[in-house]
């Protein structure tokens, strides 16, 4: 049996700036290409990570200091999982209220849409607060909708 030497887990660290998100997209796409993951899985994981990281960077920090956000990608037989860890203010996205999706062009609000997208695209979302850190795990099953 041919042994797969490519790591099934990678970790990257980014600073708390929106411009850093490009590195996350590149890492997800490289990881996906290395393991032959379907484009839809990568796109949906990229959207989910964009939403949560944008939230963390925009609202998570009350000072102007540099903060590190740690993102790990892990591939199991049946799912791609991303873990995001940050030292910002406690925020449990699972408790976020669903957005109001009614209303026409001039009434619609975009607040809450990001968490709604994560919930809709991912199969599972787990949150924990430990040692002053937010720890979020996003799981996207493979082979379900592809």
């Amino acid at each position: 049996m041919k042994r797969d030497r490519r790591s099934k887990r990678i970790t990257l660290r980014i600073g708390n700036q929106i411009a850093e998100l490009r590195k996350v997209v590149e890492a997800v796409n490289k990881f996906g290409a290395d393991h032959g993951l379907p484009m839809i899985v990568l796109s949906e994981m990229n959207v989910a990570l964009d939403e949560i990281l944008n939230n963390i960077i925009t609202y998570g920090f009350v000072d102007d200091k540099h903060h590190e956000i740690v993102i790990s990608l892990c591939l199991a037989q049946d799912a791609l999982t991303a873990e995001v860890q940050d030292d910002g203010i406690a925020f449990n996205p699972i408790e976020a209220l669903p957005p109001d999706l009614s209303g026409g062009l001039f009434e619609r609000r975009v607040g809450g849409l990001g968490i709604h997208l994560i919930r809709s695209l991912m199969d599972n979302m787990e949150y924990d607060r430990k040692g002053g850190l937010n720890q979020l795990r996003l799981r996207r099953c493979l082979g379900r909708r592809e």
Partner: protein
Amino acid sequence: MEIAEEYADEETIVDVSGRIDSNTAKALADKLSNLIDAGRTRITVNLEQVEYISSAGFRVLLVGSRRAEEANGKLILCGLSADIQKLFDVTAFTDLFEIHPSRPV
């Protein structure tokens, strides 16, 4: 993300390719804003080559569409792939826009 534009009389076609996310949405916002400020308020945004749109991108389309209508114009979308259509359905954005299957020639 890359943006190209093409003029046909009063219509402007904006061809977007790549990802519309937190990092790139501002470039599209600036493009739509500049067009509307210049009086080019009839805009079709072609999403055929777009990989995905996050909520930052949906916000830009919503604001662009509102601004176009306020200026007596219209922002139309076209070329939604099945993957992009799914994102529009999840966010309930499908009914907010006039969506054409393909790009005007």
